[in-house]
Structure formats: structure tokens, C-alpha cells
């Protein structure tokens, strides 16, 4: 009898092996969907099941929701890619062999991310993240066009440097924990470290946190460590872009936050707040400005992911129950919304046969339904009601202003600048006289709509159990 948290990790890995063995890519796609569905079921099971703290795995208010979102988005992404990826075969961008590989890797990636999420061991967490990253590197290079390889190469180098820095940070944490908790496993077990944080050496913790911030921050996509993110999003297959923006960034931020909790446990250590505020604001404002010059629709939304990650990091840097709550909410909302946007972008790219803004015009004339969905998704990410992002941004801005009025001007400025770009692009794409071809779209719109529904629901009503988790996690974050 296996536990939920084991299932969450093992199901994808097992599926990866099976899919690697399956010959036909069609069956592979179906298998991918089934496996993701199973993982999602496991995720729900985990969500409803008891919370456990083992020596290797931990299930608490903080990560249970992320596992749920992870498996959910994984499921919808698999659904989307099943209906989408066939198109890539037709256009000859991929060969069946590569698809087989793709499906196997997809599951492996999901498994690794879940591993990183449920791991109670900072080493395991690191392993999971690293595996997930390396796999996405391969996925990004999948099309083997010069651009794709360049993107993958850039991603690979930056990411692996980040990985090694993160590992060094992990070692330092161990070193900090070892005198307190003794040698071996305990001083790598997160829950014990968390409990003993107060007795650790602050200077060592500072050092560790800096290395971890740079290391995991690279995967979060914080400026100036963001460089890999836009190209990786733009050149990889669209489902992978959705997973990257929707999940991998979250998992990296999740890891970062775990260590922030550690820091919060040791009062005489460096306060990570200001550093995170600065980095968050830099990312937010920089990305907002970068939006204006983008001509590739996927790269555009990649930068918007950087912007939102910056906002989250800012919120967590502000700290306090309200800001942390808002940050967590924003994390959840962003991953749902952004992945739905990438699904929509996939549709658009199929409909117009291009990813370039200049060749996408008047969607509301040629593809009304798609245009509406796309518009709703973009407006949602822009933080307009009735969607959940509005709630989180409402909380972040109000509480920031209430505490430090002048500081609040900066995120507001960044958000407004970004909003301008989003609105400009939205109007250009869906309005006006249509140009270029208007193909039939055969990708399924279920995932997109499903996500939008969820975000809408969250904007109208947050279930108390969810709120409870967020509350608890927010308290832990200090």
C-alpha cells in the first residue's frame, strides 16, 4: 500500500518508462494523458488525505496545494499536447520517434517536479529540481532548429550554473545544521532544520541563502538571472512553455521559500526581505518594459511570467500574513492563468500559422470564440476582475500601501507599464481587419477553458480550506 505522496512521484516515473517503450506516438499521447490523469488523481488524494512529515517526504499546508496545481496543470497540459502535438507531425517539425521521447520526458519531468515538491530532504529537493530542469532543456531543444538549439544551450548553461550554486547552498545549509542536528540525514531533513533554525550559525545561513537565492532564482527567472527564460519559452513546444511558466518557475520559487522559512527561523541572520524586494521589483519593472519590444507572442508572455514572478518575490519579500497570503494566491493564480494563455497561444499559432504579432490581426473576426478566450485570459493576467489575479494584486498593493506608501508606487508603476503593453498587444491581435491565413484549429480548447473557469471561480470565491492552507503557509513564511 503506497502513500499518496509516493504515488504522486512514482506514477509519472513509471509512466515515463512505459511511454519510452511504447512504439506509436498516438498511443503515447493517450498514455501520457492517462498517466497525468492518474497523477492528478493522486494529487487530489494527497490534498484530501492526511498531512505527514516523514524523513524523506513532507506533506504540509505549504506544498499540498502546489502538488495539486502541479498535477492539474500537468494533466491539462498533457490533454492539450495530445490534441496539439499531432499538428507538429503534420507540419513536419517533429518525427514520431521524437514524440515518443517527448512523452516519456514529459512524465519524467512531472515526476521530478513532484519529487522536488514533496521532498522533506533538501538534497532530494535539489535533485528533483535539477532533473526537471535538465529534462526541460532537452524539451526546449526538441525542434532542433538553430534557434531552438541556441535557446536550449543558453538555458542549459545558465541553469546548470544555477544548479551548482544551489547545490553549494544546500551543502552550506547542511553544514549549518550539522553541529545542531548531528551528522547524516537529520541535518538535511527540512522539517528538522526548520525546527532547529534558531540554533544555527547565522553567518553560515546568510551564505547559504545567497547561494540558494542565486541558484534557484535562476530557475525562478528573476532579473538579471532571467536570460534563458524568454528564449526557452519561445522555442520549445507550446505545451512545454505552458509547463515551464505554469509549474517549473513555481517549483523553483517554492524551494526558495522553503529556505526563506529557514531564515525566518533564525532572527539574527540576514533578513532576506529587502533583497527579495529589490530583486522582485527589478524583475517586475524590467520585464514590464521589455514587453513593449517583443514581436514573438510566446516570448512576450514569457516576459510577462518574469514580471509576475517578480511581483510574487516582492510580495514574499514584504512578508507579513497578508502579503504572504497574497503572494501564494498570486502564485496559484498565475500558474493557472499563464498556462491557459500558452494554450490559447498554441491555438492562435495554429490558426495563423505564425507566432509573430505582426501577422496576427483581427482574430475576433476570423476566430471569435478563440478571440474571446484569449482576450479573457490576457485580461485575467493583466489583473482585471472577475479573475483571481485581481484578488491577489488587490491584496499585494493595498497592504503594501498601508505599510509603506511610497514603496507601493514601484510595483504599481511596473504593473501599469506592463498593463499598457498587454493591452496594446491584445487589441492589435484580436481587433482590426484580419490579415494572413486563417486555418482551422484542431487543438482542444478544454484545458484553456477549464483554467479560465478555475481562475474566474477563485476571483469570485475562495474555498475556506484553501484559505486555511494559505494562512498556515503564510504564517510559516513569517
Amino acid at each position, binding site marked *: 500500500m503506497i502513500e499518496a505522496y509516493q504515488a504522486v512521484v512514482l506514477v509519472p516515473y513509471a509512466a515515463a518508462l512505459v511511454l519510452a517503450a511504447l512504439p506509436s506516438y498516438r498511443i503515447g499521447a493517450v498514455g501520457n494523458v492517462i498517466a497525468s490523469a492518474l497523477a492528478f488523481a493522486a494529487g487530489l488524494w494527497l490534498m484530501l488525505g492526511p498531512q505527514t512529515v516523514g524523513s524523506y517526504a513532507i506533506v504540509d499546508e505549504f506544498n499540498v496545494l502546489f502538488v495539486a496545481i502541479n498535477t492539474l496543470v500537468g494533466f491539462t497540459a498533457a490533454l492539450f499536447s495530445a490534441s496539439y502535438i499531432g499538428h507538429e507531425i503534420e507540419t513536419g517539425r517533429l518525427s514520431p520517434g521524437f514524440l515518443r521521447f517527448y512523452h516519456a520526458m514529459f512524465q519524467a519531468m512531472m515526476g521530478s517536479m513532484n519529487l522536488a515538491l514533496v521532498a522533506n530532504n533538501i538534497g532530494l529537493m535539489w535533485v528533483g529540481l535539477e532533473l526537471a530542469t*535538465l529534462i526541460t532543456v532537452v524539451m526546449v531543444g526538441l525542434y532542433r532548429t538553430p534557434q531552438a538549439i541556441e535557446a536550449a*544551450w543558453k538555458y542549459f548553461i545558465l541553469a546548470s550554473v544555477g544548479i*551548482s550554486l544551489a547545490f553549494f547552498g544546500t551543502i552550506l545549509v547542511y553544514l549549518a545544521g550539522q553541529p545542531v542536528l548531528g551528522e547524516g*540525514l537529520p541535518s538535511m531533513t527540512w522539517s528538522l532544520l526548520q525546527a532547529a533554525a534558531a540554533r544555527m550559525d547565522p*553567518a553560515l545561513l546568510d*551564505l547559504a541563502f545567497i547561494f540558494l537565492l542565486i541558484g534557484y532564482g535562476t530557475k525562478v527567472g528573476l532579473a538579471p538571472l532571467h536570460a534563458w527564460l524568454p528564449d526557452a519559452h519561445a522555442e520549445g513546444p507550446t505545451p512545454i512553455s505552458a509547463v515551464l511558466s505554469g509549474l517549473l518557475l513555481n517549483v523553483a520559487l517554492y524551494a526558495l521559500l522553503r529556505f526563506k522559512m529557514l531564515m525566518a527561523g533564525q532572527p539574527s541572520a540576514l533578513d532576506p526581505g529587502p533583497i527579495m524586494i529589490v530583486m522582485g521589483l527589478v524583475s517586475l519593472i524590467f520585464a514590464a518594459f521589455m514587453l513593449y*519590444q517583443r514581436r*514573438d507572442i510566446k516570448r512576450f508572455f514569457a516576459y510577462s511570467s518574469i514580471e509576475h514572478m517578480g511581483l510574487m518575490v516582492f510580495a514574499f519579500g514584504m512578508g507579513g500574513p497578508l502579503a504572504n497570503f497574497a503572494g501564494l494566491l498570486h502564485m496559484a493564480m498565475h500558474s493557472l492563468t499563464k498556462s491557459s494563455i500558452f494554450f490559447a497561444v498554441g491555438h492562435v499559432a495554429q490558426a495563423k500559422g505564425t507566432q509573430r504579432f505582426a501577422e496576427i490581426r483581427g482574430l475576433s473576426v476570423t476566430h471569435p470564440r478563440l478571440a474571446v478566450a484569449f482576450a479573457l485570459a490576457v485580461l485575467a493576467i493583466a489583473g482585471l476582475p472577475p479573475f483571481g489575479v485581481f484578488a491577489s494584486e488587490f491584496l499585494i498593493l493595498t497592504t503594501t500601501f498601508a505599510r509603506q506608501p511610497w514603496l507601493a508606487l514601484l510595483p504599481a508603476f511596473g504593473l501599469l507599464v506592463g498593463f499598457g503593453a498587454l493591452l496594446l498587444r491584445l487589441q492589435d491581435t484580436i481587433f482590426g481587419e484580419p490579415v494572413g491565413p486563417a486555418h482551422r484549429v484542431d487543438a482542444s480548447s478544454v484545458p484553456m477553458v477549464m483554467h479560465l473557469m478555475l481562475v474566474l471561480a477563485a476571483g469570485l470565491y475562495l474555498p475556506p480550506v484553501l484559505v486555511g492552507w494559505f494562512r498556515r503557509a503564510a504564517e510559516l513564511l513569517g
Partner: protein
Amino acid sequence: MKLAYEISHLLAGVMLVVSFAQLYQQRIAAVLNAFAAQSITLALAVAWAAWSEDRPDLFITATIAFLLKGVLIPVALHRTVTRLGVHREVEKVVGVGMALLVGLALCGLSQALVVKIAPVSAGLARDELALAMAIVLLGFLMMIVRRNAVTQVVGFMSMENGLILAATGAQGMPLVVEVSVAFSVLIALFVFAVFVFRIRERFDTIDIEALDRMRGDRR
């Protein structure tokens, strides 16, 4: 015990010196040799730690370090480099002197950071931590002062060396970690190989400036 410490300390010092040598070297071939030397020293250090602290599991790490980074990769890269005919290329961004100065500054920084740690608290001697950190930072530095993909790989791997030094130095760090490190290096090599070959197929050079030609939104 004193002696054990002295030896491990000595080996770590040697590694640091070798990383400076890497920074100093002009030709790729020489850089590869220096890297090989560093990896072998690392292997020795790990082996010594395994013997002195009686942690047999560390021997695995030592062998992995020796075979993989001490022998296989340098040889493979030598091959690639000679096949590409770039083995005597000099692609520095900043002059040697400058690089060495920055390297020294980094060593100083890592010292300054480490002395703030209370002596008793750390699981390993503070100066060994300082050495490891310096090696990591120097590896990083090497990645950014060289233009050439191979040297970047080397720089990256000497970062890994520093990491492993620190990891082994950290007493009683569970086995899972070394395995994961070795595993990751494996994957890293595999992926590197894939990319180096692909790159060669497409652009007859492994200078990464060439890759930077096609980049987002320029089209």
C-alpha cells in the same frame, strides 16, 4: 588526526592553485590538462578523506572523479578540440593579469565571508570551506573570461570540483548526495556531448558567439 587534516588541507590548496593555473593558461589543450590535474587532485583529496575518516563510500566518489573528470572527459574533449582544430586557439575576453587579479579578489571575498562563521559551528574547517568556495567562484570566473564553449565546459566542471570538495569535506553528508552529484555530472556530460556535436553539425565552430547570431526578435 592533525596530519589527516594537514593533508586534506594541502590537497585543497593544490586544487586552488590549479584553478589559478587554468585561468592562466592560454591554449585550450593546456586548460584541459590543468583541469585533469585538478580533478585528479580532487580524487586524491576525496580518497584521503575516505581513508582518514573511514567512510568507504567516499571511495566511489573518488573513483568517479578520477575516471570521469580526470581521464575520460579530458581525453574526449582533447579529441573534439583537435578534430575541430581549435586546440591552440586563444579566446580570452580579459587579459591574464586581470583574470588573476579578479581571482585573487574572489579568494579574499570567500575568506572574508568565512571568517564571520563561528569556528565551532561549521561541520568542516572554515578555511577548507573558504578554499572550496574560492574554487567554485574561480570556475565561474573562468566561464566568463573565455569565449570558447569547451573552456566554458571546463570552467563549469571545475565549479563541480569545488562543490564535490565541499561536499566531501562536510562530514557525514549522506551518500545520496554524492550519487546525485555523480549522476548529475553524467547527465551534464551527456547533454554537453549532444550539444557540442549538434553545434558542430550546424556551425563548424564551437565559439558561442556564433550561436548568439540568431536570437529572439531579431528576425
